């Protein structure tokens, strides 16, 4: 079978719901597409650690300290799981970390923004993780089987984080006026990035990640799912969502909302977010500082994996 026919059979297989394992033959384009997708996801987990990490030392009770440390630990664990999936596609972890820190690869928008208070910790753990889990649940059916399996494990672990986040928010909403004000302020700042998080709607006819079933659902569908579940849960606490145009359109059967700022999204993910450079620099510094440990334990980097 020539290369083209082989690729044709492969694409027919994945479009029909067939699965792919690391040692299976796959067209270079598919391999590259999966690698890019998983690498960005891995990068996001790794960078996602930083906004919350600041608050580990500041957690105000023993239980919160345990829960937050555990949550951040899980994010590091997810980075490991995803880098392993990507690495088995042919790019070494070291190369991926290098590319991330050199600004050559991206990570999700939400992790480029600052956290300003303990309320941010609650809002992020609840709503950012919720938006992420909506995507991740859809990815459990990815055509690339190692990724799909990893997503099942990640979804199970993320469900705890959302409960922790919601608990933090609820406790503050039931607390003092000042605590409630902090939560509203956090929501005001995070709503924009949240709405941008799933990305602009894509054309299903040309979105290769959709066609090859690397991902199972489109961006707009994910956003709508997120809104359907979480808008009522946010409003029932007495919080005001800072988008006056946000409303469910019964006729159209979907949520209407103010168009997210896609320019902001593009600007931020290309490294121009308020905290992008600071966080990359922070990682660069720590990676350099600990290089001697890796050299001692796993030895210098050998030929590409």
């Amino acid at each position, binding site marked *: 079978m020539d290369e083209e026919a082989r690729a044709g059979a492969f694409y027919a297989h994945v479009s029909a719901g067939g699965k792919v394992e690391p040692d299976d033959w796959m067209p270079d384009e598919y391999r590259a597409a999966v690698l890019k997708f998983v690498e960005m996801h891995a990068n996001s987990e790794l960078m996602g650690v930083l906004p919350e990490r600041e608050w580990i030392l500041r957690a105000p009770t*023993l239980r919160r300290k*345990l829960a937050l440390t555990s949550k951040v630990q899980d994010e590091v664990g997810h980075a490991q799981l995803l880098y392993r999936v990507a690495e088995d596609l042919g790019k070494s972890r070291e190369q991926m970390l290098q590319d991330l820190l050199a600004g050559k690869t991206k990570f999700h928008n939400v992790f480029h923004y600052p956290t300003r208070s303990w309320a941010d910790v609650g809002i992020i753990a609840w709503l950012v993780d919720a938006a992420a889990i909506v995507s991740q649940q859809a990815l459990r059916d990815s055509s690339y089987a190692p990724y799909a399996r990893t997503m099942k494990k990640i979804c199970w672990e993320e469900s705890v984080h959302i409960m922790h986040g919601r608990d933090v928010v609820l406790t503050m909403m039931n607390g003092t006026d000042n605590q409630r004000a902090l939560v509203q302020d956090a929501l005001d700042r995070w709503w924009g990035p949240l709405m941008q998080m799933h990305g602009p709607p894509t054309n299903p006819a040309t979105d290769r990640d959709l066609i090859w079933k690397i991902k199972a659902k489109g961006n707009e569908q994910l956003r709508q799912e997120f809104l359907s579940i979480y808008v009522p849960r946010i409003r029932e606490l007495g919080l005001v969502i800072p988008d006056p145009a946000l409303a469910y359109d019964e006729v159209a059967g979907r949520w209407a909302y103010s168009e997210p700022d896609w320019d902001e999204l593009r600007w931020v993910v290309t490294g121009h977010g308020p905290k992008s450079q600071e966080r990359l620099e922070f990682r660069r510094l720590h990676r350099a500082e*600990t290089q001697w440990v890796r050299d001692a*334990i796993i030895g210098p980097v050998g030929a590409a994996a």
Partner: protein
Amino acid sequence: MTGLDAATRGALGELLLAMADDEFVLGFWDSEWTGIAPILEEDVAMSSVSQDEIGHAKALYEMLAMLTGDDADRIAFGRRPDAYRHAALMNHPRTDWAFTIARRYLYETADAVRLESLAGSSHEPLANLAIKMRREETYHLLHFDLWLRRLTEGGSESRDRLISALQELWTDAQAVFAPLVAEANLLTTGILAESMETLRQRWLARITPRFAELGLPAMPGAPQPHADGRSLHGADFSWLHGEFTMVADSEPRASW
């Protein structure tokens, strides 16, 4: 905790506070590694160990809270820096990986001796807690002995950093066994089966041959620690205290 007279309650409280503060402060310093440890897999491992320490601290604060009628979080977060009773070993910041491993090795081996002895405490709740904690500490001991070995055998840089860290921490490590103010009472009542000094000698007898086995140089003399080994803290701890009380202090009567 009926059946204990006031003096004994005070003595037991001092012991619990010392142990809880050791675990609490060390757990805090090492939790800083979450997200920035040298290797991804190790990041998760170190975070687990830090969480274990906070979990143990929580159990000890809760036992103390029952004794004094207070609240565990208030004890943990509600004191001024000079009222904490952790050993001087915990006054140092996280510093680098070699420093962290050195401190962990010294602390875990010392804590193992302490817990082993407390498993025979006349105060049953404390004995039971010590037995529980020892089971979790199995992993800690394995893990940090492994790292002591790896850094020793990992080349001259890792070995030099490790040795330098061990030497810097050596005197302060003795303070884990600093005599307690009410130690006489604890020994009479059997809450402590053996004196802190006896435990310290046992600890030294265990780790000295281990260092020799690994080809690490002998540590400088191990002078008996003063009682203030648990009450004099410095600028680094004050900084940490500022961090961990920041949110709690922002709204003193609020629930978080």
